């Protein structure tokens, strides 16, 4: 991290810290673009993934190790990364101005790869017991629940993976899901079914989280109080697209940024990729792919400025 001149005009600023942003940055650096990456969370959501097993060439790697591999790759290309958040984006004559909480930056092109933010349940006790029994990251907090009883809320593939990780630490893991069948990838669904200390409670919502200093129980929508020591919430995420609303980037109904096959948005010079964009299937590898295409599109677009690379 270094001092950065606020009046310098960068070729390409990539917003985000996950695989999409990093893939985009690696390609842009290799295209010879003068780039900067600004992210809130290095590694993005994949950093919290217990094991990644579906990235070609890597049979199995933990999320944290995967992020370290990204960091090594970024460092090998001397790509600058800063931890900050964008407050606003403005359009100037031939560039954009990005205002963060700590500085201002100018750039010819932008890739929005801000990913998504975890959804919250919005029920009583969720905020009160955050960090004291309520968690959104099994990798972070699983080891605190050795020989305890925990609940995973949700029925997605991510929820299944969280439950599998927690089953290595906790005495008992309950998956509490409102649907009739968890939606995990078949391989993870099978693992859940075969894990002795995981049990699924279907067709159930929780309406509040109770405790005394730390979490003690959850209340089901049928009024039953169910004793647990920890609650891991994994009910999906929303696209982190708030930063582009004022500059007029078009969003769909889910507030995802609408992109074409060149990762272009409706505003020339602004690209988007990954979980924040409108692809139907969101994976690290599909995000990387869109990010790489965004890097190429930016490289192509910058030719009109007659910059020599």
């Amino acid at each position, binding site marked *: 991290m270094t001092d950065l001149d606020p009046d310098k005009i960068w070729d390409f600023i990539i917003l985000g810290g996950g695989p999409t942003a990093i893939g985009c940055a690696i390609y842009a650096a290799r295209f010879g673009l003068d780039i900067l990456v600004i992210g809130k969370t290095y590694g993005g959501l994949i950093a919290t993934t217990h094991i990644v097993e579906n990235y070609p060439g890597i049979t199995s790697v933990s999320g*944290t190790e995967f992020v370290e591999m990204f960091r090594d790759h970024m460092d090998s290309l001397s790509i600058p990364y800063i931890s900050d*958040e964008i407050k606003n984006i403005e359009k100037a004559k031939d560039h954009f101005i990005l205002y963060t909480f700590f500085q201002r930056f100018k750039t010819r092109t932008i890739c929005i790869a801000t990913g998504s933010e975890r959804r919250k349940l919005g029920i009583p006790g969720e905020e009160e017991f955050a960090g004291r029994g309520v968690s959104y990251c099994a990798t972070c*907090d699983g080891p605190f629940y050795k020989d305890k009883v925990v609940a995973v809320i949700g029925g997605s593939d991510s929820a299944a993976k969280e439950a599998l990780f927690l089953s290595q630490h906790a005495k008992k893991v309950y998956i509490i899901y409102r649907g009739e069948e968890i939606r995990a990838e078949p391989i993870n669904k099978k693992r859940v079914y075969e894990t002795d200390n995981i049990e699924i409670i279907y067709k159930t919502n929780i309406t509040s989280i109770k405790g005394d200093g730390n979490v003690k129980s959850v209340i089901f929508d049928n009024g039953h109080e169910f004793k647990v020591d920890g609650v891991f919430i994994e009910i999906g995420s929303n696209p982190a697209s708030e930063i582009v609303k004022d500059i007029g980037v078009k969003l769909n109904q889910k507030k995802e940024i609408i992109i074409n096959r060149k990762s272009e948005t409706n505003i020339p010079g602004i690209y988007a990729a990954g979980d924040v964009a409108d692809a139907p299937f969101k994976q690290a590898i599909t995000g990387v792919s869109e990010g790489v295409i965004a890097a190429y599109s930016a490289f192509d677009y910058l030719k009109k400025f007659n910059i020599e690379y």
Partner: protein
Amino acid sequence: MAKLKKAVKLKVFTCKTRQPTGSQIRECMDCGQFMSLLRVYEENSNGMLKIEELCIDDDLELAKRYDISRVPTILFLDDNGREMIRYLASPQAGEIQPFIQTVFAFAGAGNYYEATIKQNIDRIPPSTIKVMITNMCPYCPQVVSVANLFALAGNGKIRTVIVDIMANQDIGQYYDAAGVPYTVINEKPAISGMVGPNEILKALMGGNIRVQY
């Protein structure tokens, strides 16, 4: 480490027990591995990094002077001997990167937050940021990195304490922390989970950040 802009000296408090053979072994489980790593950095620093390992049992007065009650404790002290950063942890795995970054920033490498901290310094009371971590937590290195850079930019007004709550479980229990990162600023209610630099600075000031763009 040879690229450090100025020489850095860190005090690392450990504790050793003497064996019947006369040799000494370190008592804390993580100290040996971490000290070996620090010695590698020191040896490759062309004299720019100096690690001063101090055994608390050898000099109780010194331990008292620096308020050392746990091992390992790593101290970053400024030129006046004022404590800026305290690690109640032995940085391993993902925590090595922010630790190294802190050493470089301590030696004068660029600090992205410095200008804004200086612009707002009058609104920041003398502060302590306690960041509770584990070495397995994917978000912790980022919070540690930011907190340490704040301490280095704070000109003595901001102090950081990094606590591994797996190794110091009583501290985690004292703060009711059952998750990490868990950030306590000036003993006010904790911020649980990933917290960005803007949120930390707002919490320090109790209000919005003023930035002259």
